[in-house]
């Protein structure tokens, strides 16, 4: 096969602190146009610092080279397929970066008069409308900063509603296939967590659920499609079971990329959900953030949404702070506005028909990968898959090679690994989500690579166990890092003497 990669030179680079030399600068400031104030007089001698010990001293060229060199040690979507399951690593259109930097959007202060913020408020209102339409919900808050933050918001909404009816109840049911954030969130909202075992098809078993739901149940937190990429075909019944006992259903919208334009959570019985705008709506992951975790809810939860809320006053937008039943703020200001701008730009570029087409292509790509790999890797569930497919390492484990090892070997073939060892219900999981933005050529290269690795495992498992072989950094020792954590740079005592 034609491999995607071959090795090339990469630059070494010390840490900024090691690069530093006294007196170097990389900034310019205009001359001060007011009298200089003596810091010790203004702040008090005890409050004024003499220097920031060991802080970097480098030039502008040093800075550019330093970070450019570091960047070449990273893998990103711009370099190729990034098949992390449940993370929806799709192409990030660059026009979204440009519009978010528009002067009138990037440089506005959250407290400037509403009359001078109408454009920003209009953008937020339009995004709220689009997300309500996509999810089939009645109201949307854009305040939460990330998916887990949205989950907390959603569960607090549920708690407030139940409390207003006299009893917040005690437990939240979470399927064993759920993301770790779900149980962690339930705890933060003051609930206990009851884990629900998935059935042989990898989905929620309505009968087991019915047995678990009682008058102490506040809600079920469900992911649909779930983390094995399977649509919960009994979802309507699942929601009815909860509702019949006065409980609610929260949906983790991490996998919404499988549903946009095809199926709406609001229509199949969900009460409240979050969307990861950095997944489904393509705002860049940026190495781990910023994201945005918009929450969409049904009418009965709307009075509890965090404030302030957008409202119409005549022909103008205004912020309404008069929300006596609101759960309160979950963050300062109004949300990750810059991320919201990008998400709306994405929605506008696709339009309704384009969003639906993206969903279809995402599901097509996942099914294609499933078909090409199922002879070589153990397919976890036979149920039809949506936007992602999960295999287990059963075949390879017999040769002593685990999912994590296969992942490291995949790096040698020029790809970022899939999600490793998750969901927990699949032993040795390989969770693969290609997204709609990958071409058949790229996907074929990826499948060819995984098939080649499966053959390598048979032929030479020791070689796979030592992968990656071609990266500038060999396999990293994570165990010692945790045993004696070194989480910051410090000048070595000898060096400090030399500097004196």
């Amino acid at each position, binding site marked *: 096969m034609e491999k995607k990669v071959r090795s090339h030179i990469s630059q070494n680079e010390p840490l900024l602190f090691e690069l530093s030399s006294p007196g170097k600068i990389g900034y310019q400031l205009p001359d001060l146009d007011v009298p200089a*104030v003596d810091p010790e007089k203004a702040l008090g001698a005890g409050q004024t610092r003499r220097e*920031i010990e060991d802080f970097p001293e480098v030039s502008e060229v040093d800075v550019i080279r330093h970070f450019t060199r570091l960047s070449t040690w990273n893998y990103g979507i711009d370099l190729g397929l990034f098949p992390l399951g449940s993370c929806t690593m799709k192409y990030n259109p660059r026009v979204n970066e440009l519009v978010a930097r528009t002067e009138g959007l990037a440089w506005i202060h959250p407290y400037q008069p509403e009359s001078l913020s109408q454009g920003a408020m209009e953008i937020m209102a339009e995004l709220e409308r689009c997300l309500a339409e996509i999810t089939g919900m009645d109201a949307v808050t854009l305040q939460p900063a990330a998916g887990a933050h949205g989950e907390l918001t959603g569960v607090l909404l549920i708690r407030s509603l139940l409390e207003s009816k006299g009893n917040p109840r005690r437990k939240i049911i979470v399927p064993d296939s759920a993301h770790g954030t779900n149980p962690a969130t339930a705890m*933060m909202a003051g609930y206990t967590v009851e884990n629900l075992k998935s059935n042989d098809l990898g989905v929620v078993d309505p009968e087991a659920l019915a047995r678990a739901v009682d008058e102490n149940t506040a809600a079920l937190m469900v992911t649909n499609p779930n983390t094995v990429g399977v649509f919960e075909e009994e979802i309507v019944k699942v929601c009815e079971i909860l509702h019949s006992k006065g409980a609610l259903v929260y949906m983790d919208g991490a996998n919404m990329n499988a549903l946009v334009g095809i199926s709406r959570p609001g229509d199949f019985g969900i009460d409240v959900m979050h969307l990861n705008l950095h997944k489904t709506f393509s705002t860049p992951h940026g190495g781990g953030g910023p994201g945005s975790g918009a929450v969409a809810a049904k009418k009965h939860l709307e009075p509890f949404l965090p404030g302030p809320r957008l409202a119409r006053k005549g022909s103008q937008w205004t912020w309404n702070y008069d929300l006596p039943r609101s759960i*309160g703020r979950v963050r*300062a200001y109004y949300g990750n506005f810059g991320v919201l701008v990008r998400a709306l730009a994405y929605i506008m570029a696709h339009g309704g028909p384009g969003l639906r087409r993206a969903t279809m292509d995402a599901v097509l790509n996942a099914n294609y990968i499933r078909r090409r790999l199922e002879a070589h890797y153990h397919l976890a569930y036979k149920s039809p898959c949506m936007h992602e497919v999960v295999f287990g390492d059963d075949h390879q484990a017999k040769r002593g090679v685990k999912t994590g090892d296969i992942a490291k070997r995949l790096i040698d073939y020029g790809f970022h690994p899939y999600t490793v060892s998750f969901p927990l219900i699949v032993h040795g999981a390989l969770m693969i989500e290609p997204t709609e933005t990958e071409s058949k050529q790229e996907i074929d290269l990826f499948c060819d690579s995984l098939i080649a690795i499966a053959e390598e495992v048979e032929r030479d498992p020791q070689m796979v166990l030592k992968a990656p072989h071609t990266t500038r*950094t060999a396999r990293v020792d994570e165990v010692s890092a945790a045993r004696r954590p070194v989480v910051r740079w410090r000048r070595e005592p000898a060096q400090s003497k030399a500097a004196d």
Partner: protein
Amino acid sequence: MLRVIGAESIDSLFEHLPENARLNRPLDIPPGKSEFEIVEHFRARGEENAIGYANFLGAGVYHHYRPVVCDVIVSRGEFLTSYTPYQAEIAQGTLTQIFEFQTMICQLTGMDVANASMYDGSSAVPEAAMMAVRATGRDKILVARTVHPEYREVLRTYARYQGMPVEEFGYDGETGEIDLNELEAKVDEHTAGVIIQSPNFFGIVEGVGNAAGIAHKKGALLIDIFTEAVALGLMEPPRQADIVAGELQSFAIPPSYGGPFAGIIATKEKFIRQIPGRLVGETKDANGKRAFCLTLSTREQHIRREKATSNICTNQALIALMATVYLSLYGKQGLRELAHQNLSKAHYLASKLPLKFQGRFFNEFVAQGNGRSVEAVNQDLLEKKIIGGLPLERYYPELKNTMLLCCTEMSRRNHMDELAEVFAK
């Protein structure tokens, strides 16, 4: 592809979805637009906001100049389009940079450990409070009324269902500093943490050492918050605090109507296992070369699930990168000079206005309206294309006819003179 799959059409891949879970109409969203139309659309929305105004608002969001290099670096696809660095071998760029970020935050705050960032300053406050609860085994939180009002609201939202009572304590009406007597009276053997902000919401520099002394006497932790990170360039770091939490927006992050920003939590070595969020640590690779990786993840939700220190998953990596680039450009000398310009500008404007508080301040201060209402002053300023200060009565009913003003290195003398003139009218 369909042939390989053995499907007739893409539609058939959705056939297993139950009928009552399907959307049988097109989405009510107009058809897709071209790049040109999208650029035009957002430019037009931008023009409906304030453009070309001088701005004297602070209150947690600051107008600081952003060196060009910051955007050049964060626009690189290898940073922009990468993911949380779980696969250390192909994420050394991000990991190395976060290690540098953590180090610089420690250097600025005088702490031993800093995490890889939080969503923002406001959500870092309840996370810091929960940390204090875990570290002390106590439940009560005391928070100064001089902490950003919206940060306190966020704290209350988080605290409500965690059995974490939150009580406030006031400030001295003369100085604008926290009321140490009230703090001393309220802190007791149930207090897990005392939260103050310095410079506080009024811009006043607090005596962190005094507050820490009172908290520590009763076995409580002191949590120090900051919203104006530039102050750290000139101010003595809050070494007496146990936890420092704050907002980094000042470091090259555009105001952007309130987000995305990046928060941090930093602390003493002994609390390292209580810190929420991502941490990057130094280690070696199989060839013995220095390498970095995410570490102590047994604190986190993806391993610990319901027993995690927090549900936080995302950090604000790209924003933290922006701050890291900014801090390397300004460096040891520049950050100090930048802070000094802010200090000098604010003191110039303050010298022309009646001040509400006598306490020492950095780049924000509270002006007391004389005669005319501060809203009327702001209205007149708008005509001169100046956005004035934030009226405080909405947040502090006792602070009638006052406004919070902020100057940065971007504030020009002629605008400050104009503002002072309008104020005095």
